[in-house]
């Protein structure tokens, strides 16, 4: 195996990548650990590569996004003012629902193919695996979010491509995908896993969602800083809590 193996199947295994690279220094424990961030990168990169080849997830997510926006604009029959006030809600609800599809697939596919066990066997930190998975999911959701921004700007005739709004968007999606990655790794083992993920994820990320929507509305309406800054603070706090929880708890979720 070369240092950068060129895999032949869709199910690129990070295991190969991680093992092939010689661990620079043998860990004190019985297994040599791949450096943390390289392991994170390897896991995220293999998800991206697998997705770039198959494009099954991103296609369905984008199509789902289009349809949800259609449904919203037809169901709400918005005039110009109403569009201004509801566009943030439409934006975030669509991100969450499209994100749920992605999160549900990400680990379920891994488990069905049996590659989850292989991933868990790799000599890397479990938390590196978590962050790798989380970054992969985050990138998918961010792609969807960008598509949505453009789509809603055109269809709702509201300019959404504001730097501040993008900051809110990144903060919101980080919180959502962090909690989502952790909880979807639990829901894949549940009996009705497609139904279980939204049930256990929604109440946990609703605070993030509320803060993101409130901040977005305030920014879009051009309100003063005091009206949106507390929500951004809350988002940062929530992100920090979820990142810490993911770092500390993922070990216990996937241990087998």
């Amino acid at each position, binding site marked *: 195996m070369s240092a950068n193996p060129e895999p032949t199947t869709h199910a690129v295994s990070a295991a190969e990548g991680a093992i092939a690279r010689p661990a620079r220094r043998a860990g004190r424990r019985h297994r040599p650990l791949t450096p943390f961030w390289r392991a994170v990168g390897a896991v995220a990169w293999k998800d991206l590569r697998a997705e770039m080849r198959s494009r099954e997830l991103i296609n369905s997510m984008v199509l789902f996004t289009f349809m949800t926006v259609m449904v919203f604009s037809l169901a709400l029959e918005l005039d110009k003012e109403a569009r201004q006030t509801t566009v943030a809600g439409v934006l975030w609800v669509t991100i969450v629902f499209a994100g749920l599809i992605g999160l549900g697939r990400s680990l379920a596919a891994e488990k069905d193919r049996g590659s989850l066990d292989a991933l868990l066997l790799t000599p890397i930190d479990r938390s590196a695996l978590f962050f790798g998975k989380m970054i992969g999911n985050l990138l998918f959701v961010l792609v969807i979010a960008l598509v949505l921004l453009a789509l809603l700007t055109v269809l709702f005739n509201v300019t959404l491509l504001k730097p501040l709004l993008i900051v809110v968007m990144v903060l919101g999606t980080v919180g959502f995908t962090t909690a989502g990655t952790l909880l979807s790794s639990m829901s894949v*083992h549940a009996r009705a896993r497609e139904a279980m993920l939204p049930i*256990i994820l929604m*109440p*946990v990320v*609703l*605070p993030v969602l509320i803060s993101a929507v409130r901040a977005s509305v305030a920014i879009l309406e051009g309100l003063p800083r005091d009206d949106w800054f507390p929500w951004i603070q809350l988002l940062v706090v929530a992100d920090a809590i*979820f990142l810490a929880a993911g770092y500390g708890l993922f070990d*216990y979720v996937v241990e087998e």
Partner: protein
Amino acid sequence: MTYSDSRTRLLRGLTIAAVVLFVIGLYLALFWVGPERQQGAAQRIFYVHLGSFLGSFIAFGAAVVAGIAYLRTRNPRWDTFGLANVEVGLGMAAITIVTGMTWARPIWNTWWTWDPRLTSVAIMWLAYAAYLMLRSGIEDPERRQRFAAVYGIIAFASVLFTIIIIRVRPDTIHPVVAGPTQADPTGSFEVAGRIRDTLFFNLFTFAVITVVLVWHRIRLENLIQHVMRRKLEVLSEL
């Protein structure tokens, strides 16, 4: 199931104490305290409202402790403890929400409004309801205990959210009784006299009631598991 006599006696004593405290607390809240000038009798709801919230807070907090302890020790007793706390906490939170609604109807002229505080409590309730759903959805007992512990810890974020949201957003119409707010960052306690005494008494009462209910719920869970094991034993003998 057999328990040591002293513990059973303690539980029985606590149960009786809880009932007595509850009755005294009701007397204080309903008769001893005079009617409040603006809110009249509706204000009397406030004692159970806050008391039950304290109860749910204790129970959910204990569920976090149980989750951490379970992940460290892998002793299934901690899982039982966590489950009991979540169930009792859900009941207590339900009391908080329903009494809040009956208070809000005359005072705010609506049963429910999407105020930050109300919203966050509703989210908290849903999060712990999801905890029970997650438990029922996983068959392997070891995994169920592990996931429940993890989720019990994460769900506490929603409890924290109910507490910090009104510090972040002062635009709630929900009255803030204790602790710092943006309007008064040093923290204060704005009720006095008989109202305060009654409130503290009811807070204490609901804390005791919560502990007693959790304890009984733990015994129930132990009995459930005991009977389940015995059933399997008998079946294997057949």
